[in-house]
């Protein structure tokens, strides 16, 4: 058995009296496309924030290829190879499309602030390297013609693509996608399925996605994990999870039991 790319073991995150996630565990195999689903407020994004270091879980361990990462600052976790996108797109609006991608390479530069101030040759070479790599990514996502535009002026779909391109600039091993299909119509969502598989194959990634669009999840994910009220209610192959009674209850509500109705 190979080391899982990502392993959450009994994670809990508590906000005051609310246990946003409470004892969630799952494993993601390398190169797997893994879906994290659940109704609104179930704790999916909280789980994402724990993985990417925005939150420190109160309990449990998170390991990335066997390395413990819970409680580390986000910048360190990103540097280890975990990149993410955000539910509400977070681009750098007043910077150009090219700059948005180039920023993500900053952690890899090999010159200090003094070299930057005196504009030593090394910094020109590094600048060149970042720009070349960023252009490559923009070309892949067909955004290269927009490289000089401010990212805030891009249409919604292009902004989503740009956010993914920016995340890939980190050369991640694991990509966390927070609701990639949000705001897409059914045709766009359809092509998204292929894009996610293509991303995995092209960049040799493990992908974890939080998603509400069940069509996308059931079609593209190899493993699905369903949470509700911070707790795991089902886990396994998409079909298994889809037909799981607890999942149906969580999404659609329990069948009304007439005896309880009469009592109240």
């Amino acid at each position, binding site marked *: 058995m190979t080391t899982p790319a990502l392993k959450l073991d009994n994670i809990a995150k508590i906000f005051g009296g609310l246990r946003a996630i409470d004892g969630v565990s799952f494993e993601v195999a390398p190169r797997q496309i893994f879906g994290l689903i659940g109704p609104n407020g179930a704790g999916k994004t909280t789980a994402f924030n724990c993985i*990417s270091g*925005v939150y420190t879980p109160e309990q449990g361990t998170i390991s990335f290829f066997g390395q413990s990462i819970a409680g580390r*600052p*986000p*910048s*360190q976790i*990103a*540097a280890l190879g975990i*990149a*993410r996108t*955000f539910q509400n797109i*977070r*681009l*750098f*609006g*007043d*910077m*150009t499309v*090219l*700059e948005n991608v*180039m*920023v*993500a*390479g*900053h*952690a890899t*530069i090999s010159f200090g*602030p003094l070299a*930057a*101030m*005196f*504009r030593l*040759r090394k*910094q*020109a*070479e*590094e*600048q*060149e390297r*970042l*720009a*070349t790599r960023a*252009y490559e990514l923009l070309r892949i996502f067909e955004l290269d013609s927009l*490289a000089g535009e401010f990212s805030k002026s891009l249409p919604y779909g292009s902004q989503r693509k740009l956010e993914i391109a*920016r995340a890939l*600039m*980190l050369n991640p091993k694991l990509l966390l996608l927070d609701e990639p299909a949000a705001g897409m119509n059914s045709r766009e969502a359809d092509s998204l399925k292929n894009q996610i598989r293509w991303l995995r194959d092209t960049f040799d990634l493990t992908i974890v996605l939080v998603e509400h669009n069940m069509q996308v999840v059931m079609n593209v994910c190899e493993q699905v994990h369903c949470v509700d009220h911070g707790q795991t209610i089902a886990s396994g192959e998409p079909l298994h999870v889809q037909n799981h009674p607890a999942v149906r209850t969580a999404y659609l509500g329990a069948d009304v039991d007439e005896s309880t109705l009469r009592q109240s």
Partner: protein
Amino acid sequence: MIWTYRTAVSIALIAALFVINWALDAFVIEYVVRIILQCGINAILAVGLNLINGTTGQFSLGHAGFMAVGAYATAFAVIHLESGLGFSASNIPAPWMQGLLLSVGLLFGALFAGLAGLLVGAPSLRLRGDYLAIVTLGFAEIIRLIFTNTEALGGATGYSGGRPLGLPVYTNFFWVFLWAILLITLIGNFTFSSYGRALRAIREDEIATEALGINTTRMKVLASVISAAAVGVAGGLFAHLMGTIRPDDFKMDRSVAMIVMILIGGLGSVSGAIIGAIFVAVTLEAMRDIQQYRLLAYSLLLIGLMIARPQGLLGSRELRLPAFLRRKRGGAA
């Protein structure tokens, strides 16, 4: 290749500064020269402050404090270097020696102001927006009160190195503009490098920046140190222009004046900061007759600007050299 180009430009610049310095001495009245010097000092202040307030988007209201640290450290170093080297009222150093002494003093000023930037920035830059503004304002007041209560540095009456004639007046056109050009070039290079890009990303969205593997706190503190060091140099030049420094020279209105400069020029623009700095130096002089109403005039100016052109004169854009003067940059960006 790159070094020969730079050497040529540097030599040409120094020669030009030298000639202008001589011409100003010979032909221009001192009143006008002082305004020009004030423009240069303001330019350093504005470009320094712009790095943290404009580029990084972390609103500091306390840069007068760093200016004070730079002024006192420079003056202290110059006074002690002089007496250490055996100079006195009857044995005045040669002009080139004066400039050298001043420059060594300014290095001390930059060092101590940078240190102050580190000490103030490290705890306070974890805060955002209004909170950061209040805390930096508080730190500036603390710095001012420390100087007010340090008898060795003259206390409330100010520091003149124990000399009846005050601090030696070594600041002249040559040294002000040599330092201004040096600092503006260094900060400009920094702003347009990968570091500056990361700072702008912090201004746009700190959480996203952190998620890209950039330690945002460290970047902000770095920007704060560089910014404070530059402002400290301006403080040192100011000290040796005025001949005496008092804690009251570095009150909140000084910080406000700096902020006005970068707001007028356009937050985040290096060339805008320079334009704003010159604008403020000149208008301040024009308003000399209404001294006590200056702050009021500033406010009116700001209100007017916010209505007419909220993004400042240049916005976040840069003025660029004409193409034939520009050197080709490596890379596409």
